[in-house]
């Protein structure tokens, strides 16, 4: 595959994917609020345009470099994540033998990006959001690491291509039933959504986003949506067999299957973010370390026993 075509396709996918997430968000919001959906297809574009034409704000003596770079870093991380995903059975844009470890690096750098976004404004609300996000964003990463290691056991490899191949008989979502639900929690945290929205939350008037306006805010919001796409593609690859299709399909249909499965995960992610309440950070820390993390241990042991020869 030509590298330029691949990059262009990824860019298109991220734009289209972000738009799809925004559409899902509108549908979910309308369903939960019991109201008509309104401007569904053009709505996200209109909102994005209104961000782009509004003027950029500047706070009092910010850390100007990081203030400018944080949204871009978040966006780049979303792109790196999606570049790791094998779109067909022949491989991914970035095909390295330690794929899930690199995804882990994307997760941890996301915490850095969100922290810098909140820190660099030199304002109270973003600062509180940043620190609170670090508290919850770090331990949830441990959960996701256990879940991904469990998925690597039957594949005998850390490469995402091999993990896809290992699901030819049975998808991981069935073989390791704890995996996808726990991984979805990480997705909520990575995209600052609903029950894991500790950074950009309502009790901080938008948190790390509270002092933003104009095109940088558009980039930040696009990055959030893109990260949702990236995460969902990753979840579809690790748990739903990625580009593997039913027996009657041909291998060329791989990208289509992956796109469909990604959309399913996206729908789950959006639904969870509109339906579930967020708890105070202290309570969430306790839940994470004493319930969710041990639960991921159990998942790993179960996956180990299942995969043992």
């Amino acid at each position: 595959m030509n590298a330029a075509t691949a990059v262009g396709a990824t860019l298109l996918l991220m734009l289209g994917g972000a738009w799809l997430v925004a559409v899902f968000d509108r549908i979910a919001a309308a369903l939960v609020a019991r109201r008509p959906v309104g401007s569904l297809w053009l709505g996200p574009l209109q909102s994005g345009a209104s961000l782009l034409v509004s003027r950029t704000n500047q706070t009092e003596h910010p850390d100007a470099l990081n203030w400018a770079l944080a949204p871009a870093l978040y966006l780049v991380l979303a792109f790196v994540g999606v570049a790791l995903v094998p779109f067909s059975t022949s491989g991914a844009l970035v095909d390295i033998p330690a794929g899930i470890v690199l995804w882990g690096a994307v997760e941890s750098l996301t915490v850095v990006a969100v922290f810098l976004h909140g820190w660099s404004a030199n304002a109270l609300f973003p600062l509180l959001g940043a620190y609170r996000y670090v508290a919850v964003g770090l331990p949830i990463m441990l959960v996701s690491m256990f879940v991904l290691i469990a998925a690597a056991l039957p594949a005998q490899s850390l490469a995402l291509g091999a993990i896809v191949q290992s699901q030819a008989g049975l998808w991981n979502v069935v073989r390791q039933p704890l995996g996808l639900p726990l991984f979805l929690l990480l997705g909520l945290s990575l995209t600052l959504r609903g029950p894991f929205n500790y950074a950009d939350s309502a009790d901080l008037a938008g948190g790390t986003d509270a002092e933003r306006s104009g095109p940088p805010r558009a980039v930040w919001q696009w990055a959030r949506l893109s990260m949702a796409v990236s995460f969902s593609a990753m979840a579809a690859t690790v748990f739903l067999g990625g580009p593997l299709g039913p027996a009657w399909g041909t291998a060329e249909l791989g990208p289509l299957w992956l796109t469909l499965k990604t959309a399913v995960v996206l729908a789950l992610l959006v639904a969870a973010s509109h339906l579930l309440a967020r708890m105070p950070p202290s309570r969430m820390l306790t839940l994470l370390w004493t319930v969710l993390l041990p639960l991921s241990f159990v998942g790993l042991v179960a996956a180990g026993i299942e995969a043992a020869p």
Partner: protein
Amino acid sequence: MNDLVSGIDIAFWALAAIAVLSGWRVFSTDSMVRASFLLLLSFMAVAGIMLLLAAPYIGVATIFMMAVEMMVMAVFMVMFMMNPAGLNPMSMVHQQPLAIGAGVVAFIGLSAAVLTSPLPDQPVAADHRAIHALGIEMLGDSMLIFESAGVALLSAMIGSVILSSRSGRFGPADPGSRPPGLCEGGLPAGSVPDENKNHGMGHGMQHDTPNAAPQDTHGAHGAQGS
């Protein structure tokens, strides 16, 4: 591979330059947060060099580990350092003769190690499974090292909990504790929790609260050591 300069060479030199430059910037910035993440940038460039050396796991794991560790380091540096955001100008280098000496020794040592060790001259085989080999090693000869690392890290966990948490099964940890002196045998650096439990002597401010609004004692002052 007979080209005078290959893409790999360019990548190596670029990454090396980033590593050195950002490493230097760590010590010339005023902001603790910037210093932490510049160090992260330096490590990431080194990790990129490891990827060039066909060590994918070590390279990627370095990025992963250093991202979270520098994040935690930034949290702690901001917590405990004066002027954490570098609002006032300050110097990040202290004890310069000692530091220069240590730097020169480390540089000579590492250079000697590089120059004297037999470097491989054959490229790694394309189908070499480095991660697999690492796993086999950990379950084979290095098993003992691996498990003792586990126990060592457990003791690190317990030690960090003991040192850092105030609460515990047996009540608050600070009654009777005394911060270290500013000089040997001198006055404590902060306040002693047992004395004057009403207000902090944080930075030598005198306090009297004749007219303070009556507070519902939900723990504002009550939680101080008995």
